[in-house]
């Protein structure tokens, strides 16, 4: 089967450690002992990150599809199982989640001054919810985690958010909930189709019954008739597109981002948006290849609209946080276009760009939060000449800005370049539109940087602002290190995701009208093992 259960306990530990931390905090620490609460949460998330590192080191690219697996019965009478397991792609996202979780907790020490206990409990619960989504390989388990994480995020926005927090919080919750309940119907349709699907591949009569097990459903995917695939794809699409968010489902994002506290924005941009793209790569593409291939055209159009529209709206923003929020719409459009190019370069770039976006945008929100904490104002017009007052802050901000707009030697470049190659291989019009997004991105980011940091210090309130303190530096340094690492030597990242990329493409290609040989020369992954499109993983069909 597709599982390797070695070290399965480790994955469970990584996933549930924050939950245990939240329960301990709730019952064992008094709410007045804020210092203990903060440090306890920091230690828990820090240890969680350290525990996640062995997942990467122990992952074997030539091993089973899903490693560190746990497989147990949950509700056997209806075929629901408890299945955890990760491949290189989910390991990357788990690393990102644990790192950003740690940073989110550590960056909140002074930003959150009331109801700290509940705040850290919700942050920890959110961590478990998000990681569960990346670990779960049973549809119902996946759905449970998918919805569970909405609740803590709702509270993070709703309790500790800005002036319009109530509106933003419920809007976030309802948008994502509507998307996810429709996804649930898609899941159920797959579940009930499975019986017929088994018969089609000659597996009936083995007592397998209906199942929610994702790897089993992969095997039957090519048998699903096109009409059904279309409807299931549509149901999944609504769920994932709202999360990404794709144009025109993006309207919750600016509200949620602007009102959320800094740590909430970091997690929201860094991890929650990746759930949508994760869903596409893990579920939509391999499970519904025919519908995916048919959807390429209009998803490409929506992604291009998101790239250009997001960038143009970002350019018009007066509020720094809103600007970063809209830049997310644009960047996630890149991720989508790379993914739906349906070739190795595009998918690699898309996955890498998910990580890049988590790192760069997470760092940008942190930086905006830092200045907001000092001035309680995020309007670009309020600032100017900050480079003189806060030189270190300006330096960090510059690095992250450049990373976000894709300057070579930084992470954004590698991701965007790989995506552009993939887009070009698919259609040169895609590549042209996508490239114009990069230009616009450079424009709005650099323009903001110029207005905030250069020139004379005009506003007296900005004169005495303190530069970054030690804690703030340490929240940013890991992200900057990763930005340079990916920019200079992305190979470990590409190697980690390679098996996933090959498998996903092999599963999609059964529905492609032609079977093109994938061009071997793709940037950033020169040594990628060229597993044929119909390699060993398609067994069982």
């Amino acid at each position: 089967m597709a599982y390797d259960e070695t070290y399965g306990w480790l994955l469970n530990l990584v996933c549930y450690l924050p939950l245990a931390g939240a329960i301990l905090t709730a019952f064992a620490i008094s709410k007045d002992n804020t210092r203990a609460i903060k440090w306890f949460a920091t230690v828990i998330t820090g240890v969680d990150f350290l525990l996640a590192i062995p997942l990467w080191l122990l992952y074997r690219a030539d091993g089973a599809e899903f490693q560190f697996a746990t497989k147990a019965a949950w509700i056997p009478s209806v075929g629901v199982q408890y299945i955890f397991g990760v491949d290189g792609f989910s390991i990357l996202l788990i690393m990102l989640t644990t790192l950003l979780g740690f940073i989110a907790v550590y960056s909140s020490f002074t930003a959150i001054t009331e109801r700290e206990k509940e705040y850290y409990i919700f942050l920890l619960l959110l961590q478990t919810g998000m990681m569960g989504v990346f670990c779960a390989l049973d549809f119902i388990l996946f759905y449970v985690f998918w919805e569970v994480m909405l609740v803590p995020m709702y509270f993070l926005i709703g309790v500790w958010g800005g002036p319009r927090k109530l509106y933003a919080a419920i809007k976030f919750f309802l948008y994502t909930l509507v998307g996810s309940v429709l996804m649930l119907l898609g899941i159920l349709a797959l579940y009930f189709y499975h019986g017929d699907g088994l018969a089609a591949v000659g597996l009936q009569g083995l007592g397998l019954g209906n199942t929610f097990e994702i790897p089993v459903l992969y095997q039957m995917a090519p048998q699903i008739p096109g009409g059904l695939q279309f409807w299931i794809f549509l149901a999944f699409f609504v769920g994932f597109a709202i999360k990404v968010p794709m144009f025109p489902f993006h309207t919750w994002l600016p509200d949620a981002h602007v009102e959320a506290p800094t740590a909430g924005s970091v997690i929201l941009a860094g991890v929650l948006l990746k759930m949508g793209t994760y869903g596409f790569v893990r579920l939509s593409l391999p499970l519904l290849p025919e519908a995916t291939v048919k959807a390429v055209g209009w998803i490409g159009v929506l992604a291009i609209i998101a790239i250009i529209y997001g960038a143009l709206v970002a350019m018009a923003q007066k509020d720094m946080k809103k600007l970063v929020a809209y830049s997310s719409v644009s960047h996630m459009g890149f991720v989508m276009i790379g993914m739906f190019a349906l070739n190795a370069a595009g998918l690699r770039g898309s996955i890498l760009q998910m990580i890049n976006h988590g790192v760069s945008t997470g760092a940008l929100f942190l930086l905006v939060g830092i200045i907001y904490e000092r001035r309680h104002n995020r309007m670009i017009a309020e600032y100017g000449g900050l480079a003189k007052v806060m030189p270190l802050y300006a330096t960090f901000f510059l690095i992250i800005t450049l990373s976000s707009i894709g300057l070579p030697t930084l992470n954004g470049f590698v991701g965007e370049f790989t995506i552009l190659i993939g887009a070009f291989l698919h259609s040169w019009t895609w590549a042209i539109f996508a490239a114009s997004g990069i230009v616009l991105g450079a424009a709005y980011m650099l323009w903001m940087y110029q207005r905030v940091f250069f020139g004379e210090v005009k506003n007296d309130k900005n004169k005495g602002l303190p530069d970054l303190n030690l804690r703030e530096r340490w929240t940013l340094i890991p992200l900057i290190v990763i930005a340079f690492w990916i920019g200079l030597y992305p190979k470990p990242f590409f190697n980690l995701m390679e098996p996933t990329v090959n498998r996903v493409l092999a599963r999609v290609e059964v529905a492609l009208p032609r079977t093109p040989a994938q061009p071997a020369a793709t940037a950033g992954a020169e040594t990628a093992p060229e597993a044929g499109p119909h390699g060993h993983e398609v067994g069982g069909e």
Partner: protein
Amino acid sequence: MTPSGFVPFLPEIVLATAGFLLLVAGIPLGRRATRQLALAAVAALAVTVVLVLVLARPGVAPHSILGDMLVIDRMAVFFKILLAAVSAVTVLMAAGYLERSGYGGGEFVSLILCATLGMYVMVSGANLASLYVGLELMALSVYVLVGYFKLEARSNEGAVKYFVLGALSSAVLLYGISLVYGATGTLDLAAIRAQLVALPDSNPTLLLGIVLVGFGMLFKVAAVPFHVWTPDAYEGAPTPVTAFMSVGPKAAAFAMFLRLFVTAFAPEVDYWRIILWLAAAATMIYGNVAALTQDNVKRMLAYSSIAHAGYALLGLVAATPMGTWSVLLYMLVYAFMNLGAFGFVILLESRGYAGETIADYAGLARRHPGAAAIMLWFMLALAGIPPTAGFMGKLYLFAAAVGAGYVGLAVIAVIMSAVSLYYYFRIVVQMYLRDGEDVEPAHMLRDRWVEAMIGVCAVVTLVVGVYPTPLVGWLKALSLV
């Protein structure tokens, strides 16, 4: 009939006896010893459950008793245990409430036991006549319970509205039964089914009878368009009664609904399914949309209970084995999450009808963080968010609808359950997000019994949500026919 023929009827006999004894004992003790009377009622219910379990011990095949009037099968046992639990929780929640109200408790516990007796007959009836008798016994007891606060205008208003409309619906139901009898010549459910199987029939008299029976049942489960009594009756009734009638009679009515339609009238499914489809869609849409604007918590929960009846109707529309057992599971889940939510309304009713408006929940999280967290849990459960039992319940209902091919109805159901989150979270917003502003934190009563019952409900909602395995396995083996 020999006296030994009544042995399988012992649970009901115990309930009836205890009901009468407590009514008599309540005359001298009603005001002073409310809590003792409640404990006595719980003891009677416990004895009943033990008898139910003994009579349906493993190895005893489903069989009918008392000349085929009642049947003892898995569904009957399930509902009998569930209804005994609902009644016990209600009585324990009500004890302190009645003490504070000064209305006394003898009649209250007696009426609850009588209603429970009626519901027992409803869930195990195998004959249109016995089903109707059970339904009327339940309904009459609940009419009185709604008007239990005889000096409160709202209580009286609710009772009168409920009674008038309830009597009308019973008449409709009875007329439907008589038409079915006229067309088939029998009142026995199995015989009706056998006859319909033998010659599928589109005889208009029969169809009209089935439709009228359906209307009567839709009234009893508070489905649109027969729901108009619900908000007023729920709002006016004493809160423990509201809690009880929103779960107990509803569960019993669904049991009766299943017995009538999924067994007896099953061969005519193509005729009645369209009506239930429309009723389910209308109920889910109307219940959820109307609940959005309610500022009175009891009224909001009334509309929410209408909406939940709509979800449960999905299982009947599916008319598959999965549809049936998912309705049963949902009745259990809904009973405990709704009772838990009403428990909080009771605790907040420190002065008269205070604690009923949504604003009374403001700042609850600050003064009572634990209580607020549990209330949040119930709200999440009612909205169907995992890992609560509310999600598990809805999952199977939706799955049954999708599995039977009613995807359109399932789409309505999931969209509406997303809508429902908005009004449940209006309470959450008050508890958690309106803190530190210009509000006086809500004041809660200390009533150990209610707190304990809320705890029980929370645990059930958690356990069924996280590990429903044994329950689902047991229910899945259930067969109605």
